[in-house]
């Protein structure tokens, strides 16, 4: 076996100090297979070596949390013996290199994280971020990513019910593809990854192993250079048909009591799954690699252990249950092989052709992983800019028309029409609203699910941006009438070895933690994606948040569409006309400066609780939160969704009209009602600012006596941008 040279160590993304730790952990020089295993386990992707100490600051507990971070996905109790299991994960680097397969396998991976735990996946969402629409690659990347997400999700038969899609030049060289899956399980049928039972068989199921994506996990932890497009061969190819079979076979086996532990093979496949199962169970694992189903001939132990072939799982079964398990996997035409056993050595031992080819103590492999306290520098605070710092538009209607056709605000129908969002027959809140809503099959319950983040706020003020990202998901869930329960996240940042980037990470975590605490809204799973930089150019800090909430009776839900003509429109929350970091400032004034709007977490909670109460009692007939683009965009959304216009008549209390209409002050909602007095009364009791700002009706949005625009025209510009953009070859 070849000696390990410093070059080989460097090629594995390990620095000399880390190599010394490996030698120390092993008590000898590792061989190449062992080095490969250490390199993936100690990569940023698997070890969270730059982020671990900070992630601990996030609140992860609540009475309804069944399982927090650390397993394949997080679990919350949704009553009646049922649980929601969910997680979000990034597939940024693979998607940039090969958008279709990168995005498709991202969806496949997150689905496996969820059904591994015993859940039937019921909803997918995707938070996507692309470079400038003018960048020559953007169109190709967007089209490939959307086709890949659809190609995979549509085939497995899980509805894709929402997500987000933004554009910014900071993503020109590093797009973000963050996929989220939510599943439902019975609380007494949840499966974990800790191996147990000395001598129990270790089973491999799913697709065969090939030389796919070797070193994907280390690729996901390295900065891109000019030649990243040459990395194409390491990208894995997804097979949604096999995934669908794997879902059905696993759920069928899970209905029995044959499984002791189960873990999907994600990044670093066989390595990470066997190490996780052994170390969580505080046992050893012995694998005979000759029994691993292989797609190619002559594979080495190194290749088998590092392969990222998709649609594979590792299980520990109760002794003697192999035949019934095998029968199920054979029925679904999937490979099933006993490849090893649980031991009491607390070592990972690999055999190949009768020889021991690796013998690694699991304790040190996991516990001695580097844990860095990287230097971090706080982002300099920016000035709070008053409305006067920004120019007023010629007319507010023109500004609205222009804003609705900008890339971030334009309708994303072109994207979500390529996703089957109706399969499974429970989607009652389709894409395009505040949150996607799916019924819990066969019950009166429904889950409201959303993903959100405003990276421009995070860049300007990481702490405020972190708060806002969490609060916005809470708000979007609240706007359907659901009670927000917990979040997952995908923390996408640049190179953590740069103090300013590390400072963005630490700041966003701080803000997220504050918001989670204030809103009783813990983090139950997540993923960190660092080194999103190309040639030293980092992405905007993007802590994408995926939130889940529950409606106990879905008939009480609200949608963003105005319910009827002649209803009173009420604005909930405080409006100061904050234009710093707003889309108005960026898109119409060409400015990306100033402090972002502050999030007042106690007001956030007060306002949201009031709104939810009004929805559930039927007082509010429709509801939309106010976010990017401000109040007028929110009202336009409601008008377009219902094809009902509105006549606005509001007291702006000294705030210039454009700041009132386009400011992005936080914690606000627009509701409609037939009982405005009741709303104002209740708001006054709760100490919430509420004001009547108009009435629904007609076919135009009348902003003032002299300024109006038809709903049809709004729809035309809003729906027009993306299809027109994508139609250019």
């Amino acid at each position, binding site marked *: 076996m070849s000696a390990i040279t410093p070059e080989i160590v460097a090629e594995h993304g390990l620095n000399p100090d880390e190599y010394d730790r490996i030698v120390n952990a092993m008590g000898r020089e590792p061989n190449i297979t062992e080095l490969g295993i250490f390199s993936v386990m100690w990569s940023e992707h698997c070890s969270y070596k730059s982020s671990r100490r900070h992630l601990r600051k996030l609140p992860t507990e609540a009475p309804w949390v069944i399982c927090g971070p650390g397993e394949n996905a997080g679990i919350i109790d949704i009553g009646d013996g049922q649980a929601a299991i969910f997680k979000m994960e990034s597939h940024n680097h693979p998607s940039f290199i090969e958008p279709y397969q990168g995005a498709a396998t991202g969806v496949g991976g997150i689905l496996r994280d969820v059904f591994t735990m015993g859940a039937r996946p019921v909803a997918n969402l995707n938070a996507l971020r692309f470079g400038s629409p003018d960048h020559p690659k953007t169109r190709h990347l967007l089209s490939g990513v959307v086709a890949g997400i*659809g190609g995979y999700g549509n*085939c497995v038969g899980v509805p894709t019910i929402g997500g987000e899609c933004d554009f910014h030049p900071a993503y020109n060289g590093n797009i973000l593809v963050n996929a989220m899956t939510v599943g439902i399980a019975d609380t007494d049928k949840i499966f974990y990854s800790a191996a147990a039972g000395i001598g129990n068989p270790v089973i491999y199921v799913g697709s065969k192993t090939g030389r796919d994506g070797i070193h994907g996990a280390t690729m996901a932890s390295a900065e891109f250079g000019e030649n990243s497009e040459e990395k194409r061969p390491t990208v894995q190819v997804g097979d949604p048909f*096999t995934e*669908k079979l794997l879902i*059905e076979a696993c759920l069928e086996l899970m209905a029995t009591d044959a499984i002791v532990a189960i873990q999907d093979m994600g990044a670093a496949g066989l390595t990470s799954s066997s190490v996780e199962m052994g170390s969580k169970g505080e046992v050893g694992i012995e694998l005979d690699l000759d029994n691993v189903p292989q797609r190619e001939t002559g594979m080495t132990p190194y290749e088998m252990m590092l392969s990222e072939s998709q649609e594979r799982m590792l299980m520990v079964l109760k002794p003697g249950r192999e035949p019934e398990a095998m029968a199920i996997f054979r029925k679904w035409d999937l490979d099933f092989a006993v490849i090893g056993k649980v031991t009491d050595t607390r070592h990972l031992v690999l055999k190949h052709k009768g020889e021991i080819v690796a013998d690694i103590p699991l304790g040190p492999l996991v516990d001695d992983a580097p844990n860095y306290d990287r230097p971090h520098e706080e982002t300099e605070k920016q000035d709070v800019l008053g409305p006067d710092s920004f120019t007023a538009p010629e007319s507010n209607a023109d500004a609205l028309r222009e804003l609705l056709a900008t890339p971030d605000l334009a309708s994303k129908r072109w994207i*979500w029409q390529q996703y089957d*969002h*109706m*399969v*499974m027959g429970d989607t009652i809140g389709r894409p395009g609203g505040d949150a996607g809503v799916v019924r819990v099959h066969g019950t009166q319950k429904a889950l409201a699910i959303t993903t959100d983040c405003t990276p421009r706020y995070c860049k300007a003020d990481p702490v405020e941006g972190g708060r806002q990202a969490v609060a916005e998901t809470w708000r979007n869930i609240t706007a359907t009438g659901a009670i927000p329960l917990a979040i997952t996240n995908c923390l996408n940042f640049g190179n953590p070895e740069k103090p300013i980037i590390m400072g963005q990470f630490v700041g966003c975590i701080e803000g997220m933690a504050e918001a989670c605490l204030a809103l009783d809204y813990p983090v139950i799973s997540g993923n960190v994606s660092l080194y999103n930089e190309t040639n030293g150019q980092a992405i905007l800090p993007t802590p994408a948040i995926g939130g889940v909430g529950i409606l106990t009776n879905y008939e009480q839900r609200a949608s963003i569409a105005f319910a009827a003509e002649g209803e009173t429109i009420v604005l909930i929350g405080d409006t100061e006309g904050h234009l710093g970091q707003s889309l108005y400032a960026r898109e119409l004034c060409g400015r990306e400066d100033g402090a972002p709007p502050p999030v007042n977490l106690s007001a956030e909670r007060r306002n949201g609780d009031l709104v939810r109460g009004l929805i559930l009692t039927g007082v509010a007939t429709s509801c939309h939160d106010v976010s990017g683009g401000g109040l007028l965009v929110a009202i336009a959304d409601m008008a377009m969704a219902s094809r009902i216009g509105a006549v606005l008549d509001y007291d702006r209390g000294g705030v210039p009209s454009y700041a009132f209409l386009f400011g992005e002050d936080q914690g606000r909602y627009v509701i409609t009602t037939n009982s405005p007095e009741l709303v104002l009364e209740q708001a006054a009791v709760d100490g919430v600012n509420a004001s009547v700002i108009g009435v629904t009706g007609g076919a135009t949005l009348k902003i003032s006596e002299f300024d109006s625009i038809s709903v049809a025209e709004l729809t035309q510009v809003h729906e027009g941008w993306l299809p027109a953009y994508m139609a250019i070859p």
Partner: protein
Amino acid sequence: MKPAVIVFPASNCDRDAAVAIEKICGVKPLMVWHGDSTLPDVDLIVIPGGFSFGDYLRCGAMAARSPVMREVVARANNGTPVLGICNGFQVLTEAGLLPGALMMNAHLKFVCKDVALKVESNQSMFTSAYQTGEIVTYTVAHHEGNYFADDATLDQIEQNGQVAFRYLDNPNGARNDIAGIFNKERNVLGLMPHPERMIERDLGGDDGARMFESLVASL
């Protein structure tokens, strides 16, 4: 009424079809695995949507050659009503029970949206609860829904009154805006849009429910 739903490995609307049948027809359908070469005595066979065999080779091609399909073809030829929805329509054309073929959408993309359809004839056990000429809304969700038949076949289909549903705003390039067709005897219906996804207001509409009501009335 004794309905059966055929289940292929990657069918994914099998449950949706079963839910619709149970809700509207009041009877739980039999779920029949594609590998079975026998089919119990049933009076309605539904081939659901999905990706049967990953839609590899061609949509519905391998499903049409699975063991249970021989029996389905025999029953259809003996008059048992067979309903193929979406991937089920593709399977029925591949199995030769319906003329023509379903090709990739003209715009090359998957499309999931509500579509308005014109009911071309209520003279069938699938459509008797509709009015001929009525406009209804179903959902489409497919990548290969672009109906093709050569000119002679198309003429025949039209002359025989075999067109069951036509798109008002063609979402996939289908010839003659065809969304669904009967066989000549009208005991086999294949259509790309999903009636089973439109069975209650909460899902966006209930126009699809009447297809199942029609079946209840005639079986």
